C-alpha cells in the first residue's frame, strides 16, 4: 500500500470560503467606492468646500484631525479628495472586514462545529489557516484597490480645474493596503490565539481602536506626538507619499504583517482547538 502523506492544497475550501465572504466584501467595496464619488462630488466645488470646512471648524478639532488636519484647505484638492480615504466610515469598513473574515473562518468555524469536519478531511490545520490568511490579505488589498478606483472614477466624473496626482493616490492605496493587511494579520493572530470568536473579535478590535485613537491624539496634541510612531496608522500617508514610494513605512507594515501572520500560524498549528 502506498499513500500520499502530504495533502494537496484545499482549493475547494478556498473557493467555498471565498464565495461565503464575497457578498460581505462586495457590500463593503460598493460603499467605499461610492464614498469616494460622494466626497469628490462635494470637494470639486469651492463653495461646497468652504461650507464643509466651516462645518468641520464647528466640530471639535480632533474630528478635523481625523480627516486630514491642517492640510484641509480650499485649494488643496489632493488633501480634500483624501478625506474619502481617511473618513472614519471607510476605516471602519476596512477594519470590519479585517476583523470579521479571519475570525469567521477560524474561530467561527470552530464554534459552529464545522472545523471538526474540515479537519477530518485531508486538510491540515496550516492549510486552513493559510486559506483564511489568503482571503483576509487579498480581500483587504482588493478593498484598497477599489477605493483607489473610486477616486479614479470620481476624478473622471468631476472637473477639479487642475490635474489630480493619481500616482500619489495609487501609492497611498498600496501603502493603505499594507496597513489594512497588517490589521488583518493581527486579527488572524487573535483568531488563532483565542478560543471563542467574541474574544478574538474583541481583542482585534481593541488593538485597532487603541491604535487609531492613540494616532489621532498624537496628531491632535503636540505633547503626545512621540506616541505616533507606536501606532500602525503612523505608517500610512503623510508627505512621503507625495514625492515617491514610502518604502520605510511599507517595510514597517510588512514586518508587522509577517510577524503577526506567522506567529498566528504557529499558534494555530500547535494548540488543541476547542472542538
Amino acid at each position: 500500500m502506498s499513500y500520499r502523506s502530504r495533502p494537496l492544497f484545499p482549493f475547494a475550501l478556498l473557493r467555498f470560503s471565498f464565495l461565503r465572504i464575497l457578498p460581505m466584501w462586495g457590500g463593503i467595496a460598493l460603499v467605499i467606492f461610492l464614498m469616494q464619488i460622494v466626497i469628490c462630488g462635494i470637494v470639486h466645488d469651492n463653495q461646497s468646500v468652504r461650507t464643509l470646512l466651516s462645518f468641520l471648524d464647528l466640530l471639535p478639532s480632533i474630528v478635523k484631525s481625523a480627516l486630514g488636519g491642517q492640510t484641509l484647505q480650499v485649494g488643496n484638492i489632493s488633501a480634500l479628495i483624501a478625506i474619502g480615504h481617511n473618513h472614519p466610515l471607510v476605516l471602519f469598513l476596512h477594519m470590519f472586514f479585517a476583523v470579521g473574515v479571519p475570525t469567521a473562518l477560524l474561530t467561527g468555524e470552530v464554534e459552529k462545529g464545522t472545523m471538526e469536519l474540515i479537519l477530518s478531511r485531508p486538510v491540515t490545520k496550516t492549510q486552513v489557516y493559510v486559506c483564511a490568511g489568503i482571503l483576509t490579505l487579498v480581500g483587504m488589498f482588493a478593498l484598497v484597490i477599489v477605493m483607489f478606483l473610486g477616486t479614479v472614477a470620481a476624478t473622471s466624473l468631476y472637473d477639479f480645474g487642475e490635474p489630480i496626482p493619481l500616482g500619489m493616490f495609487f501609492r497611498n492605496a498600496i501603502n493603505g493596503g499594507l496597513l489594512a493587511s497588517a490589521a488583518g494579520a493581527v486579527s488572524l493572530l487573535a483568531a488563532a490565539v483565542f478560543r471563542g470568536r467574541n474574544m478574538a473579535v474583541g481583542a482585534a478590535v481593541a488593538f485597532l481602536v487603541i491604535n487609531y485613537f492613540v494616532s489621532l491624539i498624537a496628531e491632535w496634541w503636540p505633547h503626545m506626538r512621540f506616541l505616533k510612531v507606536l501606532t500602525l496608522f503612523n505608517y500610512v500617508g503623510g508627505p512621503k507619499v507625495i514625492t515617491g514610494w514610502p518604502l520605510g513605512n511599507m517595510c514597517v507594515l510588512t514586518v508587522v504583517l509577517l510577524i503577526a501572520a506567522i506567529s498566528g500560524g504557529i499558534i494555530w498549528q500547535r494548540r488543541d482547538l476547542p472542538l
Partner: protein
Amino acid sequence: MSVLEVKSLTKWYGSARGVEDVTFGIESGEVFGYLGPNGSGKTTTIRCIMGLLKPTSGEVRVLGQRVAAGRATQHAHIGYLPGEFRLWRRISARSALRLLARLGGSDLAKRRRKELAERLDLDLDRPVGDLSKGNRQKVAVIYAFQHQPEVLILDEPTIGLDPLVRQVVLDLIREAAEAGAAVLLSSHDLSEVSVVCGRAGILRQGRLVEVAPIARIVQQGEHRLKVWFVEGTMVPHIPADRLPGVRVIQQKPGMLHLAYQGTCDAVLKWITQFPVDRIATQQTSLEEAFIQYYKQQHNLTVKDGDDSTAKGCSS
C-alpha cells in the same frame, strides 16, 4: 499488522484526565466496539486518532503511518462520523457533502453518495438548516461512507435514527467491514454493538479496562436462572461457601430466581439435589453485562479506595 493501532495513548487536559495508557488495535475487516459512559474518554480517543487533539504521550498509527496532530494523517482513507455532526446550515446537504468530498482531492464519491441517499431515503437538495435531527444524522452517515474509506471512525452513528434506518446503518457497517474496512464503533447502544462488533473495549474514567470479544464480555456478566421446585418442596437456602458469587434475586414459595457469574455447572449440581419441576434461563445482554461490569469495577475501586485498582488493559 493492525490497520489502526493505538499504543499507550494518554491525553491530559491540564490537570484533568482525558484518557490514560489506552492500547488497542483494529484489523482490516474488523468492527471494534468502543464502550464507556459519558466522560469516560471515548471522544478524546477518537479525536487523538483523527489528529484533532495532540496526545500528551503515546502514539496512534493509521494504515501504518504515525498520526501527527493537525497534519491530516491518512484522512483521505478515513471515514469519520463525529459525535456532534454540524454542517453549514444555509447550503444544501448535497453541496456540503460535495465540498467535504472534494477537500484534498477530486469528488469521486458522487455515485456512492446518490446510492447512500436512496438507501437512507434522504433528499439531499434541502438546506441543512431545514433538516430534522434524524435527517441530519443521515447526512452524517453519508459523509462518513461516501468515499468508501478503509478506516471508519464512527461516534454514535445511529443516534436520533428510527429503527428501520438504524438497521440500514448497521448493514452499511457490516458491508464496509466485509469489504475490508477497519471500523471503530463508539456507541451507547449496546444492542447494536453486540450485533455488529466482534470485539469491544470498555473505558472507565479514561482507562481501557477490558478489550475482549463480545461473547467473553457477555459471559463475564451475571447470568440469571429461575428454578421452580416440585409442589410442597421447601425452597432451599444457598450455601454461600459452596456457591460464591451466586445471589438470590427473588424468592417465592416454590420458586427461586438466582443470579450467578461464569458457568452454571456448580449451581446446577447444587439444584439437582432437590426435586426440581422446571428451569428457565435468560440470555444475558451486552447491556446487562456492561452495567454489571461497571458495578464490579466500581466496587473494586471503592474497596481499594483508589482508581488504580481498575484492571489493566489487554489487547
